[in-house]
């Protein structure tokens, strides 16, 4: 081995950190697929006045089929949500639930810091922990969004059963909320989530499960410091200037 080769090998030995265990990666995959099916089968039902929607809903059988697909995807997503919450409760009961995703005051400070950065009032980005405030916003907006979608969806799916114990007015309210929240959530994913994981940087850690050391230093400096006890790149660069 020549010295050069040795060095190249050394350079490519990139350390990676596990970010998502395999269970969470599967959860995300199920979530993405079922949500995509729900959006695609829900949109023609919502935008019934448009020609493309009417082409899809061209017969009672077709409408019934689209509704059935929507319902099946809804059940899959609901089961996934039950598993997700059930697991969280299970871990919480054993005091094993990592609190990384919980919103804390530091997130507000980070958001303020980030805002200053975006207004060119600061040169450095905040140092984030395992999940930055943007990711927490994504999680919690979708958490409550899916909760609303799920509850209202079942209300309009089974109106007779729900009105046994709820006033009838909940059904049109649920219909309105279901239809509006779906658009809000979809637009949210498209602008917020897609920007942060595809455009700002391609972050495939939810599929690969791992982040490179470089990504850890750059985007999750605090977490990197906590795990390795080393100064992150951000801190290093600041020192240099």
């Amino acid at each position, binding site marked *: 081995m020549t010295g050069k080769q040795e060095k190249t090998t050394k350079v490519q030995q990139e350390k990676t950190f596990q970010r998502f265990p395999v269970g*969470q990666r599967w959860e995300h995959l199920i979530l993405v697929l079922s949500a995509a099916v729900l959006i695609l089968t829900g949109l023609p039902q919502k935008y019934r006045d448009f020609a493309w929607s009417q082409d899809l809903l061209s*017969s009672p059988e077709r409408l019934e089929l689209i509704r059935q697909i929507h319902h099946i995807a809804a059940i899959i997503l609901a089961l996934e949500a039950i598993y997700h919450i059930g697991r969280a409760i299970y871990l919480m009961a054993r005091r094993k639930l990592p609190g990384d995703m919980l919103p804390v005051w530091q997130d507000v400070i980070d958001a303020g810091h980030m805002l200053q950065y975006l207004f060119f009032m600061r040169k450095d980005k905040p140092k984030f922990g395992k999940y930055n405030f943007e990711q927490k916003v994504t999680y919690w907006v979708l958490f409550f969004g899916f909760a609303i979608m799920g509850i209202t969806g079942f209300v309009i799916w089974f109106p007779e059963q729900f*009105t046994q114990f709820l*006033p009838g007015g909940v059904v049109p309210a649920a219909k309105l909320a279901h239809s509006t929240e779906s658009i809000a959530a979809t637009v949210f994913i498209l602008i917020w989530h897609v920007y942060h994981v595809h455009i700002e940087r391609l972050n495939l850690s939810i599929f690969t499960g791992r982040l490179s050391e470089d990504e850890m230093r750059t985007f999750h400096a605090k977490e990197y410091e906590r795990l390795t006890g080393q100064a992150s790149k951000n801190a290093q660069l600041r020192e240099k200037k």
Partner: protein
Amino acid sequence: MRLRNYFLIAGLAMLLVALGFAFSPVTAATHLTGKDEAGQPVPVTAVENDACLACHQNPQFSTTLGNGETFNLYVNPDEFAHSVHNERNLNCVTCHVGFEPAMGHGLTFGSRREATLRMNEVCGQCHATQARQEKDSAHAAARSVGKMEAAICTDCHTAHAVQVLKDLSTGQFLPGMRTWIPQTCARCHSAIYEKYRDSVHGAALTDESNPDVPTCIDCHGVHIIEDPRTSTFRLNSPQICAKCHTDAKRMQKYGLSTQVLETYVADFHGTTVTIFEKVAPDAVTNKPVCYDCHGIHDIVKVNDPQKGLAVRANLLARCRDCHPDATLNFPDSWMSHYIPSPDKYPLVYYVNLFYKFLIPGVLVPMGILVVMDFTRLMINRFRKPKHIEKVKTTEKPEEAAPADEVKLSAKPEKPKSTDEEAHYD
């Protein structure tokens, strides 16, 4: 020479006009009526109505048909005298074409209905449009499958006492004629008429000659009367009701909402029905249309104590037709054509208000943040090469290494063990 040309042109023009007259429908009609089956001219003008009435004004004047039926040949001279056809100077033989002075006038019929049906074809001579429309009607369809009792022209308009129904200059019905319509249909559809007469529409027509309420033909059409039992009719029916019920001028007289169609279409049932109406007009669906809840002919006011839909039990009964498990809360799932407001369906109103603020209030700032973030990102990209240059000079990495690897090698030394991965979930 010139003068001769003028004469030639004038002569040709006159010839054309003369030909036009010869083939015009007016003259053609006399041709038709003026010939018998063999095409021999019959002296039509010679047959005056008085000649016919000489026999036919006798109430006992009748004949026996092939099937043994007695066919009364009496024509009430007074009735005919007051008919529009007499007023327009039409003769008996204008309609009774192929007349022969001989016994039976050269006509033989197996039954009374056969005689009526054959005579009925004559109406189209003058009333071609109506006759053509009638051929597409439910009545014509019924006759084509052997139900010969289905109405023909004279069943509604009578044979000899035909009346003018409309003011020909305005197209409006003459006084009393709208009331005459349901009574005419009632001759066959008596059970339906009974329901209609007691309905909010029928009562207003019969009792006050109300010009705003529909008669039979306003919904079912006239002459081209559609079969109301088809899926197409069902899916289209909300539009029939909407013709009047979205007409603000007409509705405000009675304090009725014009948002009935809009609110219906916005809800589950109306949405589906309108989609099918557009894309699959013959689709069979049990999704309710107006008349499934409000009644077909026995439509009453919503606050009618017996049958009105404002009485919850009545509405619930309608719901249960399709939703057998519905309980007393269920009818409220349908907003009864109300637009949500703080008083009516406040929950829906506030959910709508919430999203009206939430969507622009959250998604727009988020969009702005994303744009700002992207701008900053791009600015940093342009500055980055400088950065690396700096690092390069200070840290002196391998000259062959590309930029990314430079970055890595520029970092402080990595932890030795790559197996020491952070499992921190």
